[in-house]
């Protein structure tokens, strides 16, 4: 996927005196991480194909502060939050969608008491609502009949009790959805949360992502589905570590839907 996509910014909308239906919060991984950028593009294609009127903040977006907060740097977190809230409130943002469960959790739960009140959705919830409204069609296409297992991101699942939206979308792909032995509220972390993504793990006898990849491999999947750019990286590394990258793909739910339709 190396073609440019059209992505309107809030500043452009503002200049035209218009308001988009929803703000797409891209997040740091979605903006800068090579793997996650593909997820961002897939999601943008789905937004376009569903004729969703959306915009991004672009260069006005800044880290939500999640990794700082979970490292214990409340100060830096709140500085980030207040700055972002100022930008979003100036644009009178009402509704936000993001493909990152960490941004989702922070925007939804931790911004309100600092003055940022928005309706915040994870992209799987948003896609599900497009599907329910008949704006998005999801069909099997090239994934029909494939064995897929979904890894629950902690910050989507346990943290916010969203378990069904990603699964309902996957089911529409007419795939064979299998569950790992630990899933939904018992799902095991991929190892990236709490700012672990940005540091070496503490001494132990195994890496968490390997343990979780083993859970996934037990289900003999063709594809491991993820709903978080960090889980995606962790699981991809795990699959490589097990030398299974030729037979098992790790794909975001948005990528699965977009690729199925060859968007």
């Amino acid at each position: 996927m190396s073609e440019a996509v059209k992505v309107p910014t809030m500043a452009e909308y503002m200049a035209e005196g218009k308001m988009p239906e929803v703000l797409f919060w891209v997040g740091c991984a979605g903006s800068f991480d090579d793997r996650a950028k593909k997820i961002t593009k897939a999601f943008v294609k789905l937004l376009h194909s569903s004729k969703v009127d959306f915009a991004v903040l672009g260069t006005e977006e800044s880290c939500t502060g999640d990794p700082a907060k979970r490292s214990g740097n409340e100060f830096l977190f709140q500085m980030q939050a207040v700055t972002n809230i100022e930008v979003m409130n100036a644009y009178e943002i009402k509704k936000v969608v993001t493909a990152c469960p960490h941004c989702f959790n922070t925007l939804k739960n931790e911004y309100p008491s600092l003055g940022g009140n928005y309706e915040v959705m994870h992209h799987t919830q948003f896609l599900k609502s497009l599907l329910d409204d008949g704006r998005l069609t999801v069909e099997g296409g090239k994934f029909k009949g494939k064995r897929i297992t979904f890894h629950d991101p902690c910050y989507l699942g346990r943290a916010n009790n969203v378990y069904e939206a990603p699964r309902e979308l996957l089911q529409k792909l007419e795939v064979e959805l299998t569950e790992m032995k630990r899933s939904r509220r018992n799902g095991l972390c991929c190892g990236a949360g709490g700012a672990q993504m940005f540091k070496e793990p503490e001494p132990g006898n195994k890496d968490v992502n390997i343990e979780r990849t083993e859970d996934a491999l037990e289900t003999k999947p063709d594809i491991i589905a993820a709903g978080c750019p960090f889980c995606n990286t962790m699981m991809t590394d795990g699959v490589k570590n097990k030398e299974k990258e030729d037979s098992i793909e790790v794909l975001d739910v948005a990528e699965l839907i977009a690729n199925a339709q060859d968007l």
Partner: protein
Amino acid sequence: MQYIPNIIFVIILIAGIGYFTKNVRKLIRNIKLGKDVDRTDNKKERFNNMARIALGQSKMVRRPIAGILHIIVYLGFIIINIEVLEIIIDGILGTHRIFAFLGGLYDFLIGSFEVLALLVLVSVFIFWIRRNVINIRRFKTLKGWPKNDGNIILYFEVVLMTLFLTMNAADLQLQNIGADHYAKAGAYPISQFISPLFNGMSEGSLVLLERGAWWLHIIGILIFLNYLYFSKHLHILLAFPNTYYGDLNPKGQMDNLKAVTDEVMLMMDPNADPFAAPAGDEPEAEPEKFGASDVTDLNWVQLLNSYTCTECGRCTSECPANQTGKKLSPRKIMMDTRDRLQEVGDNIDKNGSFVDDGKQLLNDYITTEELWACTSCNACVEACPVSISPLSIILDMRRYLVMEQSAAPMDLNNMMSNIENNGAPWPFNQMDRLNWSQE
């Protein structure tokens, strides 16, 4: 002379309850050493949580074997305590089975107590096997006092239940031979099988046996009551307030520190004068300490959590860090917090007020290696049967490390300075944030 047993009984009862009350007071004082946090909202939801999680044991059955056995012991514990009420009244008044006038209902009650007592014995036996024979990691990793504590309470249950059944069996035998004072009362579905063992015993020895079992039973219960304070079995009482005061927010939501908000708002406010003297003529308050390095920096709900912890280890067995061999164990976080709180409490008892003992929760109990291993995944919070959040303590201690000591691991410091300078955890320029759309 005939009132001597009644008087002795009342004295023992008052002593037992008095000592218990004294310890409960200490407990409440220690919990109040924590910082204030408002949990007075949503009374209805809180009440429902308490009814569902503590009374209804809803989270226990997620592990069905342990869960169902626990419910039996718990029901046995509660219901047999109704019998204790009768024991106390009989003890004070010198009566025999004062509730016998309930007739059929009484037979039913005593009958069910007996059945429960037997079920408790069976469950306790299985619990003992699980703790000591079968290789269950969350129990095997307990050493020293916590391990003994778990077993002591099981032995206690065995002794109490056996005494209860022996007392009933001797009573039944006395009723059958038509002894004075032992009027026919109650149904004895279990102890009727024990009483034949006492065939041929004289009335005198039977009375001795019945009275002996009766006295030991009630004394045992008073000892049990006073043992709670020193044991993980405080959860029998504290599970109720703990589930009531639990966090109602989504698990992913971490509190926003108010003191930080005030400072940030001041910094961001273009009209604020950074050199302005504090309003009014109050003396400048000591700057608030960010995060927690000792138990008194935690809030009272976190301290209540530590006393409520059942040391069951469900949290640790679900913890990704622990499963992959890291030093972190959320159960240990809770046990350390309680141990340190107890130490601080004893210090206050001894000295009148807290005298610096050169120790704190951080480093002396909980190491930074443990704290930095947490992924904040909330598996521990989800697993806990009594609504404890080990994660909230971990995060408060990280806050202290980072904001008071600047002692984060180097990688995290780099990540944070990236956020500060470029608005992303990696060294990319914020101006490049939309480049992906053109690639």
